[in-house]
């Protein structure tokens, strides 16, 4: 029903565009000069169609459920029901009307469900009638109003401005919403677990918090030594460090090669090939790390007399580094290529060789961009989940031995939220606390990155 109505409104929009333009053409044919191109007259009418439709739809979406609920529950008023019970009755009514109610059907509820259905259908048809009549009225009004000297360009431009603004507002509001959901859950978490224990505790064992009877009262003492985040923070930074040890040198060197040394032909093939690396899903990297690199490292280590875990930080970090190579290589290639040729010429003309030019002129000039690409790589490394989950194990060991298994913030969030979970449970809230810390870390990284870039800009521009 809604879909049909919507289609109809869209068709109406196109029709009003057509009529608006047609009227503009007919004005034009009388040798009068228009204030805007004929299309603007069309768009203008289409906007007169879209805005009322949007307003009515929004109002309906806001008020219809409330009004229907009030009408249904008015039958039950003065019978001494509590608010919760009334809500339950309403939910039962809705479920029954959809045919999804499985409990005992009382005559009361049955009557309510029928009433609910009839109210809904009345609401739907009245909505259709109101929307269509208002749209037609507004379009007709606007159609009559447009003349050779009416202003249509400005409203159309303003409307576009508003639409684009709304789009960016939606993105910003979503971000804010996510941050707030993180904040509130995190605050709840820290009501049970002291901040000090979380930040400085060295034992991370969230499963311990779950093995309990749900009816049991929350006893903070049982969570002591359970949510100490140091091991997973250490693991996160450690694995990211290993990844960057692989990604920075290889990525940077291949970026420099592509930008400065490679012939046009080599570059033409090599660059897309490297960028393919960025297109591989991380889960594929994950099983490459878990099933190929991990066992290989274990065998290699064993043959050298080292004890290597099959799931090691080295395997996960190394493969993660390979995953990040294309980011650094491609971005630094772009940055280096955009250094003006005149600087290269200036350096060559002084008798500098290619490597001297790169080291002394190109690299410093491109540094802000290169630092930016590296920090982007670091935040990828810290946020990467799948490779760690698959290749570095889920046990949060506090270790600096790359051959042992360790775990990261992201992997622990996965562990916590897989399987059974209850809201309001510290174990679930721990995931939010971790997400919040992760967010703070990447936020700081971004701020640092921006500052570094800005500092160099100020110095050299």
């Amino acid at each position, binding site marked *: 029903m809604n879909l049909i109505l919507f289609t109809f409104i869209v068709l109406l929009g196109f029709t009003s565009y057509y009529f608006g333009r047609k009227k503009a053409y007919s004005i034009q044919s009388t040798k009068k000069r228009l204030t805007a191109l004929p299309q603007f007259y069309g768009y203008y009418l289409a906007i007169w169609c879209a805005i009322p439709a949007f307003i009515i739809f929004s109002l309906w979406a806001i008020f219809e459920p409330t009004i229907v609920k009030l009408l249904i529950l008015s039958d039950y008023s003065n019978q001494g029901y509590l608010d919760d019970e009334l809500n339950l009755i309403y939910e039962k009514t809705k479920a029954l009307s959809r045919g999804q109610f499985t409990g005992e059907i009382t005559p009361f509820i049955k009557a309510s469900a029928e009433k609910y259905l009839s109210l809904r259908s009345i609401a739907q048809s009245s909505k259709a009638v109101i929307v269509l009549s208002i749209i037609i009225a507004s379009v007709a009004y606007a159609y009559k109003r447009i003349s050779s000297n009416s202003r249509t360009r400005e409203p159309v431009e303003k409307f576009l401005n508003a639409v684009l603004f709304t789009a960016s507002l939606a993105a910003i509001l979503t971000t804010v919403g996510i941050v707030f959901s993180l904040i509130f859950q995190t605050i709840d978490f820290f009501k049970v677990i002291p901040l000090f224990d979380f930040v400085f505790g060295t034992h991370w064992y969230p499963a311990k918090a779950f093995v309990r009877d749900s009816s049991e009262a929350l006893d903070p003492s049982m969570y002591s030594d359970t949510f100490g985040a140091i091991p997973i923070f250490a693991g996160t930074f450690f694995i990211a460090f290993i990844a960057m040890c692989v990604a920075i040198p290889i990525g940077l060197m291949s970026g420099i090669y592509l930008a400065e040394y490679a012939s046009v032909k080599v570059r033409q093939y090599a660059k897309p090939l490297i960028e393919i690396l960025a297109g591989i899903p991380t889960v594929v990297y994950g099983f490459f790390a878990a099933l190929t690199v991990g066992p290989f490292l274990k065998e290699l280590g064993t043959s050298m007399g080292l004890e290597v875990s099959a799931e090691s930080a080295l395997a996960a970090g190394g493969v993660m580094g390979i995953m990040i190579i294309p980011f650094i290589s491609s971005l630094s290639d772009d940055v280096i290529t955009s250094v003006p040729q005149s600087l290269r*010429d*200036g350096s*060559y003309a*002084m*008798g500098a060789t290619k490597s001297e030019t790169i080291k002394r*002129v190109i690299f*410093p000039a491109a540094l802000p961009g290169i630092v930016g690409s590296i920090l982007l790589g670091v935040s990828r490394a810290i946020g990467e989940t799948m490779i760690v989950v698959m290749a570095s194990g889920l046990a949060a060991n506090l270790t600096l031995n790359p051959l042992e298994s360790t775990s990261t913030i992201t992997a622990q969030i996965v562990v916590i939220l897989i399987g059974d979970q209850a809201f309001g449970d510290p174990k679930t809230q721990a995931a939010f606390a971790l997400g919040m810390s992760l967010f703070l870390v990447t936020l700081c990284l971004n701020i640092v990155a921006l500052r570094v870039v800005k500092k160099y800009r100020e110095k050299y521009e």
Partner: protein
Amino acid sequence: MKKIKAKDVDVFYGKKQALFNISLDIEENQVTALIGPSGCGKSTFLRCLNRMNDVIDICSVKGEILINDFNINDKSCDVVRLREKIGMVFQKPNPFPKTLYENVSYGPTIHGIAQSKQEMDEIVETSLKKAALWEEVKDRLHEPGTGLSGGQQQRLCIARAISVRPEVILMDEPCSALDPIATAQIEELIDELKKEHTIIIVTHSMAQAARVSQNTGFFHLGQLIEHGSTDKIFKNPDNKKTQDYITGRFG
């Protein structure tokens, strides 16, 4: 005394020939101006003299260019040493994104000229003085070179070029991005520099060529139409094309 002798130089960009059979001798410690309409090959010829055309993949140079009677197109020529001897100043000022000091000390550093910090300080100071920039910048040597005005930047680039005491300085339209006052300063500087250096300048401004140069070469469509003393070229050219160009009838 002939500093540079070019014999039958041809230059190709891919299959397209840009210079045809150029033979031109350059006098030592004088200013030679290369004039001609846009795209006539004068900059290309200039870039042959310090092998800057090597940087362009598709560019190939044939013929002999003798500098101090040594063919720089020979395989045994060391481009790094060549460019130490032949400095270059570009059309658009291109200071490096480094401090003023680092800009001027760039050449001496890569050629290992200065033995000590003190010596380097001296080189930087003399170069900036010779480029008539010292008084304006002596208090901010450690600020970025890109913060200077256009004319100052160009003089910084000249200081950078003369810091390694080159025998020849190539200037590719050094004033085309500058205002008249900065242009006058650079021209004055060129006059001063020719005492110690041989200067070859490409310019679009006939007036500039007349003001600063002792010799002039006129290029047209990749050919050297005429060359000789500036006086003769401007007052009594042999070739009609030269006459037309000088008097502004084309180009």
